[in-house]
């Protein structure tokens, strides 16, 4: 199974009630897979007329308490930003998958990580956040999908899975099993048609004096709770490391190979891999910066996560950067070269 199909099957396993999407490369395997699996399970599948429509179909399905998702790639995710802002305002749970490709504009269909800012800063208008998960293997494409709906339901929030074209297309062995049951709050806010004689209203409009500020405070308090409880990251070979690489997604996969090679050569290098990109593992990286002299951030962008790493390190160690753009993929050798240079220059100091 390729990463996209692993994610799609995990959506079935996670009890996704409805999928809405508009075709775009490199994520078409998701809709092709769900086009037969969803109806076979008696669930809803619609190919929408646009990403605008897809995200609003998600909005409608989610409002009735159903588990709804969409998937797309960078240009399509841009079109969904309006809907994602409304989802945030209305506090509806939803899952959005972005299998990133090169940009800006139509860009190309090669893997990229250029949508990090869009995903982790909110993306649409207004002051909001979405939980962002960055899988780094086919297995994690599935695992993140399974986790996403639970997080979405628990916090009434959108969860974006930020993958890339390489993860979507590559094939790896996979074990699929449902997640252990997580107790989730009842959806007593859902629109079901006057359940119990009480009107439910879902809206993002708050016109009363100070009402929107109150609503925003409530949203921010929720975001702080998520930052407190849902940070996930992997720490790899940090024992005695003098250089620590920070990378996510497929780049972390490549960096891990570089770290292994470096260790074989006797270079003390380790890896921190954020799995949640928001909430960002700032504490873990900050702690590492206390002990390790140099941090190297590697991304398939001009340096977006780099800003979060710098904020986390807070000047305690130099933060260097290696990036490729527009569909370029760094090789393990390239990264190892960077690591070697860093350790050399450190010795000279």
């Amino acid at each position, binding site marked *: 199974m390729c990463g996209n199909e692993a994610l799609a099957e995990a959506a079935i396993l996670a009890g996704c009630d409805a999928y*809405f999407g508009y075709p775009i490369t490199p994520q078409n395997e998701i809709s092709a897979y769900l086009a037969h699996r969803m109806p076979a399970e008696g669930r809803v599948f619609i190919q929408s007329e646009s990403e*605008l429509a897809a995200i609003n*179909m998600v*909005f*409608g399905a989610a409002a*009735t308490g159903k588990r709804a998702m969409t998937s797309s790639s960078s240009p399509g995710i841009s079109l969904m930003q309006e809907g994602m802002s409304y989802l945030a305002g209305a506090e509806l749970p939803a899952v959005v998958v972005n299998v990133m490709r090169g940009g800006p504009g139509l860009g190309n269909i090669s893997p990229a990580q250029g949508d990090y800012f869009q995903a982790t800063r909110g993306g649409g208008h207004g002051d909001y956040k979405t939980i962002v998960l960055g899988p780094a293997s086919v297995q994690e494409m599935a695992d993140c999908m399974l986790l996403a709906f639970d997080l979405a339901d628990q916090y009434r929030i959108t969860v974006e899975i930020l993958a890339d074209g390489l993860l979507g297309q590559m094939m790896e062995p996979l074990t699929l099993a449902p997640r252990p049951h997580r107790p989730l709050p009842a959806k007593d806010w859902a*629109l079901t048609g*006057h359940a119990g004689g009480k*009107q439910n209203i879902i809206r993002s409009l708050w016109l009363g004096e100070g009402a929107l500020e109150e609503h925003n405070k409530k949203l921010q308090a929720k975001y702080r709770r998520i930052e407190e409880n849902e940070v996930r990251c992997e720490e790899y070979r940090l024992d005695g490391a003098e250089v620590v690489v920070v990378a996510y997604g497929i780049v972390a996969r490549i960096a891990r190979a570089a770290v292994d090679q470096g260790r074989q050569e006797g270079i003390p290098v380790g890896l921190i891999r954020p799995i949640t990109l928001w909430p960002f593992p700032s504490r873990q990286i900050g702690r590492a910066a206390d002990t390790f002299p140099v941090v190297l951030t590697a991304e398939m962008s001009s340096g977006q996560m780099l800003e979060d790493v710098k904020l986390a390190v807070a000047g305690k160690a130099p933060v260097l950067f290696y990036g490729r753009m527009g569909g370029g993929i760094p090789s393990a050798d390239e990264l190892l070269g960077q690591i070697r240079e860093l350790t050399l220059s450190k010795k000279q100091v």
Partner: protein
Amino acid sequence: MKTQFKRTPVLKDCPTHYCPGCGHGIAHRLLAEVIEELGIQDRTIGIAPVGCAVLAYNYLDVDMIEVAHGRAPAVATGMKRCNPDRIIFSYQGDGDLAAIGTAEIIHAAHRAEQLTVIFINNAVFGMTGGQMAPTTVLGQVTATTPEGRQSHGEGYPLQVSELLALLPGAIYVERCALSNVPRIRQAKAAMKHAFELQMQGAPGLSLVEILSPCPTYWRMSPSDAMQWIEDHMSKVFPLGRLKDMEKDER
């Protein structure tokens, strides 16, 4: 004493924010009466537009959602497909449905979604200050057509209902008006039919367009606005049933 007339319980007991003589209030009342008469208050979900009727959820006592400008038919699609036994309606203005949301309404009809759409055509963008709508008639002065709408450069009034009626997935399309009592009664009958079709599981979308006065931005008295619908608007947007698959087949 015998009660001759009373408020329907589907309409909440509160004042609305609409201008004097606005058609939205009348349309809300008709909608509420239809929902009551059909006995579907406890299984109806309504969608409020972005427009003057954005607060419709404050007036109609059914489960409701407020959605992004023009996207109601897509939201409705998500709701209905996941909840086929619920009755889903959207309530949309001409800016909402005929400008920014053109793609969503055409494709909801095109997919034959089993929805009921109440389309309030008041020939302007009321909420934002009376700008030109796609349905603004030629010569009509608005905030953005100070010399009156010209076909050259500003286009002709868009007849969305005629357009939608061409689609096989739109099974019932009727244009009504609120300009006098018989017309108001007809508008209610049309709304009721549009809901009944959905209740029967009829295979497609029903839409009732309602020519509705906006005295504020037509800069007229409420009664002149009613007359303007009769004299001008209904000439550009002819009243009557454009399509009823059920009746047309017989």
